[in-house]
């Protein structure tokens, strides 16, 4: 992990900052402009989820690297009442307030991986990942870096 950013979510202006931070990190990790927009949009939804259901929380952004791919990880944590039924929350049309309950299911469609953990009374954590294929040259360079680390 080389990059890590945390954005506190307490007001709707913070959502704008979280979107911008997500886009900036995506760009640094070599995602296309379109992918950056998908990521920023998904962040917008989970940030709103924090505000509407818990009132405050944080969004943590970091990178992740595997042999054949790079990824961005978005973790949205709140300390609200938790979600009664995670399955229900992921169905289109669910939601007691806000955007017609499209938020979380839509965010899931924009990202490659999406999980929700919720303990009633103890907050909700949404973790989302998006991957980018690593081209062969990048893979070689990464392997070389790892070899150098072993030697060093």
């Amino acid at each position, binding site marked *: 992990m080389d990059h890590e950013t945390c954005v506190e979510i307490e007001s709707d202006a913070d959502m704008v900052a979280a979107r911008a931070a997500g886009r900036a990190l995506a760009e640094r990790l070599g995602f296309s402009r379109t992918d950056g927009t998908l990521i920023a949009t998904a962040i917008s939804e989970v940030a709103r989820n924090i505000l509407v259901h818990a009132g405050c929380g944080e969004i943590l952004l970091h990178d992740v690297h595997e042999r054949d791919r790079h990824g961005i990880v978005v973790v949205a944590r709140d300390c609200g009442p938790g979600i009664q039924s995670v399955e229900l929350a992921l169905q289109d049309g669910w939601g007691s307030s806000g955007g017609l309950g499209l938020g979380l299911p839509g965010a899931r469609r924009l990202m490659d991986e999406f999980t929700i953990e919720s303990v009633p009374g103890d907050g909700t954590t949404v973790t989302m990942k998006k991957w980018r294929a690593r081209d062969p*040259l990048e893979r070689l360079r990464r392997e070389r870096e790892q070899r150098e680390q072993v030697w060093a």
Partner: protein
Amino acid sequence: MNGQKPSLPTPPLETHEIDAELLPKLVAYLRQMSVELREKWVSRISEAQLLGVMSPEEIFSEVKAVYDNYVDALETGSVESLQAYARDLSERIIHRGVETHEVLGIVLLLRDVLARSLFLRYQDDPELLDRILDSYEPAANRIAVTVGVSFVEERERVIREQQAAIRELSTPVLQVRDRLVILPIIGAIDSQRARQLTEQLLNAIQANRAKVVVIDITGVASIDMTVANHLVQTVNAARLMGASAIITGLSSGIAQTLVDLRVDLSTMNTVGDLQGGLEEAERLLGYKVLHSDPAPPDRLA
């Protein structure tokens, strides 16, 4: 991480390894001997038949610059300016076909030429010579690695640029007339290429202020669920940007597949062949096509 400007971490030369008293001596000697040593280096380069694509004058002027940068790097312990020069040099010579082994070869030759001259200078005092070489060798090796890596990184960058250019060439978006673009898709489509096609088409809509796009898939042999859905998404995205999309050249096989896959085509405007698609496009743009042989065809707004 970022593909744009690849760069390995380059820690400064470990100057503490170089004897504080010996370093200035060594550098002064190499500067004093520079003309002679450069000539020796050039002759070793031509003996080894390296840099055959460059003229002797070019080699001489690069040799001077590399030598000076090299000695500077020894003196300051910083390889940054040498690295910058190596990148710049690489950019100039890569297109002329200079190979990695040539670049590594000439840097190693310089290392050898300098080592030999140090040997000759200090051979009468083996203990001092030992200390001099202890200082010199790690620094020289680090420099060789820096130059070699800079060259390879520059070459990777060039390859990457060429790959991007080829990808773009394989999916041309053509402007046929004002406000009308065509995207002819030929060959196999996987989801990565489909994504790329979409991005190019949407950018072309913006750049050409297109109102109608014709996507011709006559040259596509088969299609799967992912690609079919991508096609639907592309059409919908084009519409959000204010452009109508027409799909042409659906083979009966693909049409069958789309029906079998239950892809929702209700939002799609499909026309049998490219010719028909263009006529439909012109109708949408408000043109009337008159078949008026032998008088030249005319368009009325």
